[in-house]
C-alpha cells in the first residue's frame, strides 16, 4: 500500500421512488498520496460529492455502496461496520461542509463545537483540546484566536465560520480532510483569505485533502491533482498544470473555455444620442423604523443614481451585503424606496409596485437568483410560463399554448419540457424557465439578480450567451446584478461598483484592468485566475484589505 487513499472501481446505487435502482457512480477509481490535495471537479449531478462522502464510508439516504473498494489508510471503508467507521471519522478522516452556517449549532459556543470531536473520541483532556483549538485558530489566521471560541456562530462572519469549520475538522489530527465546496457561498474578497488559510494549514501539517468544487480557478490554486467527473465516471485525471494546459477530454476543455474572456458584442449602430430607458436619482432604500426625516434607520442603498439606456446593459457588482439586491428590489418596487426618483421610459414611477399600472409592471421584469424558489414547485412549466400571457395579454388557451412553445424555443429548451414540474429540471433548465416567464411579459427592461450565481461555470456561460442573443433579437435592456466580475464583464456596457450601499465607481468593461477607486481595485484583484501560482503570488495592499475586507 503506497497511497493513503486507493479507491478501486467504486459503484454506488440510488433507489428512486418507483423502486428502480439507478447507478450514480459507475466504477470510479482514484488515488491520493500522503499530503496530496486532489480536487474533484464537475457539474452538479456529476457525483463529485457522492464520491467524496464515500471516502468516509457514508452514502446519503437512498444511496448504497454496491461495489468496489475504498481503502483509506489500509482500511476498506466499504466493508467496515458503521461503528468502526464512526471511530475513524473525525480522527482519520474529517469533513468540511459547504455551508458552515448550517453546520454549526446556533445554541452552543464555537469552542464547544470545535472540541466536540476530541470529547467523543476521548483524544485529549478538554483543557488541552482548547489550547490546540486556539493554535488552529491562529494557524487559520482568524482574528482574536483567544476569544473567538467563546462566541456563538451568528456572531462571526461567513468566511470566519468556514475557517472555524476547518478547525473543527483538523482538531482530531486527521490524515485526510474532505472539503465540500467550502468557498462557493463566499464573496471573492473573503474567499481569498479562506483559501490561503486552508492551503497553509494543509501544507504545514502534511495532510491529504479532497477538494470538491465546480470552480476550476479556485481548484487551480489549492490542488496538486485534478480529477474531472461527469455522469458518475472519471473523465480525466492529471496534475493541475496538465489539466490547465493540455486538457484532453472535451468536457474539461468546455470547463476551461468558460473561463476565457468572452467576445464582446460590437455595436455597429452607435446611436449618436442613446435614449435613456431608466433613470434613478438619489435613491435611498433601507430597513427598520423610519426616522423623522423620512429616512430608514438602516440605509441599505444610500443615494444611488444610475441611468440605463435603451438596448444597453448595466452591471451592478459588489460583495454580499453591499445593497445590490435591495437596489434591484427598490427599482422593481418590491421593497419601496424611502426617497428618490425612478423615471422609466419617460414617466415617473411610483415607488411601490402596488401603485404602478399593470403596463408599467409588465415592462419591467425581475428574474431572481434561485430558480428553485422562484418557480412554484406545484405547477408544471407550461402553467408557469403561460400565467403572464393570460394576465398581461389576455391570450386564450390556444394562443397561450402556441406562445409557450415559442418562448421555450427562445430560451433553447425542448418543447416537451412544458409538462414537467420544476423539480424535474436541472439548475440551468430551471433558470431558463425563470427567464422565459419574464420574457412572456414582453418587457423592455429585465433586472437579473445574480441569475448565474447558483449555476455551474459551463451552464452559466451558456445562459449568458442566451441573454446576449435574446437582447439582439428583442431589443431588451438588462440590469445585471452579480458578485462575479467575469459574468458582468461579458454582458454589460457599463459596470457600477457598489460598496456599503453606495455607488463607488462606474466604469466600462474595457477599463476593468484599471479601476480608480480603491475598493474596485481590491475587488477586481480578488477574482481567482486559472494560473496555479496566482494565489501564492498575490500581493494585496494590506491597507486596502484592512479597510474593505471582512476578515
Amino acid at each position, binding site marked *: 500500500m503506497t497511497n493513503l487513499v486507493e479507491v478501486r472501481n467504486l459503484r454506488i*446505487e440510488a*433507489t*428512486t*421512488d*418507483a*423502486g*428502480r*435502482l*439507478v*447507478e450514480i457512480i459507475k466504477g470510479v477509481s482514484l488515488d491520493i498520496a500522503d499530503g496530496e490535495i486532489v480536487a474533484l471537479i464537475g457539474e452538479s449531478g456529476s457525483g463529485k460529492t457522492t464520491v467524496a462522502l464515500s471516502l468516509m464510508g457514508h452514502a446519503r439516504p437512498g444511496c448504497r455502496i454496491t461495489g468496489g473498494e475504498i481503502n483509506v489508510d489500509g482500511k476498506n471503508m466499504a466493508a467496515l461496520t458503521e461503528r468502526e467507521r464512526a471511530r475513524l471519522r473525525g480522527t482519520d478522516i474529517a469533513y468540511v461542509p459547504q455551508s458552515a452556517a448550517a453546520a454549526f449549532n446556533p445554541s452552543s459556543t464555537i469552542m464547544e463545537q470545535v472540541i466536540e470531536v476530541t470529547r467523543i473520541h476521548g483524544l485529549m483532556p478538554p483543557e488541552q483540546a482548547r489550547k490546540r483549538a486556539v493554535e488552529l485558530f491562529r494557524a487559520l489566521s482568524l482574528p482574536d484566536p483567544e476569544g473567538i471560541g467563546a462566541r456563538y456562530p451568528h456572531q462571526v462572519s461567513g468566511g470566519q465560520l468556514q475557517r472555524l469549520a476547518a478547525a473543527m475538522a483538523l482538531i482530531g489530527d486527521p490524515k485526510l480532510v474532505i472539503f465540500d465546496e467550502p468557498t462557493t457561498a463566499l464573496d471573492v474578497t473573503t474567499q481569498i483569505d479562506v483559501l490561503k488559510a486552508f492551503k497553509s494549514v494543509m501544507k504545514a501539517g502534511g495532510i491529504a485533502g479532497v477538494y470538491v468544487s465546480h470552480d476550476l480557478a479556485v481548484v487551480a490554486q489549492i490542488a496538486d491533482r485534478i480529477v474531472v467527473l461527469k455522469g458518475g465516471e472519471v473523465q480525466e485525471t492529471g496534475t493541475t498544470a496538465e489539466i490547465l494546459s493540455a486538457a484532453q477530454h472535451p468536457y474539461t476543455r468546455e470547463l476551461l473555455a468558460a473561463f476565457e474572456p468572452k467576445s464582446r458584442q460590437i455595436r455597429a449602430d452607435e446611436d449618436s444620442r442613446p435614449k435613456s430607458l431608466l433613470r434613478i436619482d438619489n435613491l435611498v432604500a433601507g430597513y427598520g423604523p423610519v426616522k423623522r426625516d423620512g429616512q430608514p434607520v438602516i440605509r441599505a442603498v444610500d443615494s444611488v443614481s444610475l441611468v440605463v439606456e435603451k438596448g444597453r446593459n448595466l452591471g451592478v457588482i459588489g460583495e454580499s451585503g453591499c445593497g445590490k439586491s435591495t437596489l434591484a428590489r427598490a427599482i*422593481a*418596487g*418590491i421593497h419601496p424606496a424611502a426617497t428618490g426618483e425612478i423615471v422609466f421610459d419617460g414617466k415617473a414611477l411610483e415607488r411601490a*409596485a402596488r401603485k*404602478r399600472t*399593470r403596463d408599467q*409592471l409588465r415592462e419591467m421584469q*425581475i428574474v*431572481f437568483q*434561485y430558480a428553485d*424558489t*422562484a*418557480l*412554484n*414547485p*406545484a*405547477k408544471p412549466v407550461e402553467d408557469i410560463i403561460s*400565467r*403572464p400571457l393570460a*394576465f*398581461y395579454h389576455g391570450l386564450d388557451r390556444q394562443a397561450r399554448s402556441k406562445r409557450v412553445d415559442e418562448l421555450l424555443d427562445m430560451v433553447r429548451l425542448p418543447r416537451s419540457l412544458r409538462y414537467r*414540474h420544476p*423539480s*424535474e429540471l436541472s439548475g440551468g433548465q430551471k433558470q431558463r424557465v425563470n427567464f422565459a*416567464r419574464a420574457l412572456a*411579459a414582453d418587457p423592455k427592461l429585465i433586472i437579473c439578480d445574480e441569475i448565474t450565481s447558483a449555476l455551474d461555470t459551463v451552464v452559466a456561460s451558456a445562459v449568458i450567451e442566451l441573454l446576449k442573443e435574446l437582447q439582439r433579437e428583442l431589443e431588451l435592456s438588462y440590469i445585471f446584478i452579480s458578485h462575479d466580475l467575469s459574468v458582468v464583464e461579458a454582458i454589460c456596457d457599463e459596470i457600477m461598483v457598489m460598496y456599503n450601499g453606495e455607488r463607488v465607481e462606474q466604469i466600462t468593461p474595457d477599463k476593468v484592468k484599471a479601476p480608480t477607486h480603491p475598493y474596485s481595485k481590491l475587488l477586481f484583484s480578488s477574482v481567482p485566475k486559472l494560473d496555479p501560482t496566482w494565489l501564492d503570488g498575490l500581493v494585496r495592499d494590506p491597507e486596502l484589505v484592512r479597510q474593505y475586507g471582512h476578515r
Partner: protein
Amino acid sequence: MTVARAASSRRSFLGHSYNLVGVVASLVILAWTLVAIFAPYIIPHPIGDIVDDDYFGPMRQGLWLGSDYLGRDMLSRVLMGARYTVGISLAAVSIACFSGVVLGMIAAVTGGWFDTCLSRFLDAMNSIPSKLFGLVVVAAVGSSIPVLILTLAVIYIPGAYRFARALAVNINTMDFMTVARVRGESTIYLIGSEILPNIIRPVLADFGLRFVFIVLLLSGLSFLGLGLQPPLADWGALVRENIGGLPFAAPAVIVPSLAIASLTISVNLLIDNLPQKIRDRDA
C-alpha cells in the same frame, strides 16, 4: 443506465404508489361511508321498535348484534348511528377546514393589522375548552343537528386557521410569491393558485385528523347527553345509553365503541399512508 426493480412493500397503480395499510384503511372508511349513505334501506328493523323480549340480549340469529337496554335491534341502531356520526362530523370538518384554511392563507398573504387582529381573535377562541363551549351553546339554543354541526365547526376553525397560516407563511416568503405580487396579481389568485397547491397535502392530512377529533368530540358530547336527542342516536349516544350493559358484557355497549375506534383509527392510518405520486418518469 442499469435498471432493476427493487423489492418493495409498496405497489404502484395509476402512477401512484400505495401500501397495504393505506388500502385496508381506505376500505374501512369506504365501507362506513356506504353504510352512512344507504343505512335506511339496509337496516333490518326500524330503530325505535322493541323487537326483543329481553334487554341487553346476546348476539343470535335475527339479532346479529344483540339488543339494547330497551330490547331494540342493535345492528339497525349502529348502522343508522353511522349516518349521524359520519354525516355531522364530515359537515362540521368541511366547514371548519374550509373557513380556517382560507382565512389562514389570506392572513399570511395580507399580513399587517388584518393578520394580527384575526390571529388574536382566533387564539382567544382557541382558549375556550371545547366541551365547555359545546355545553354552553347547547344549553343556550338547544340541541339540533344544524346547531351541533356549527358548534363543532366553530370549535375547530382556530386550529385549522393556525395550521394553514403557519404553512402559508413559509410559502409566502418564496420568490415565486414575490414574482406574482410584482406581476400585480390579486389576493384570490395568490392564495388559490400559488399557495394552495403547495400546502394541499398537509392540509388534507390535517382535515383527516380534525375529522377524527370531531368524531370523538361529537361522541363525547352525545355521551354526556348534549348531542343527538333520543330516539336518534349516534355512536357516542349508543355507548352512553347502553353503559348499563357493561357488567353483562353486552354487545350493545361494545359494538358502538368498536365502530368509533375502527373509523378513527382507519382515518389516522390512511393519513399516514396516503398514496404517493411517482415522479420517476423512466419507471
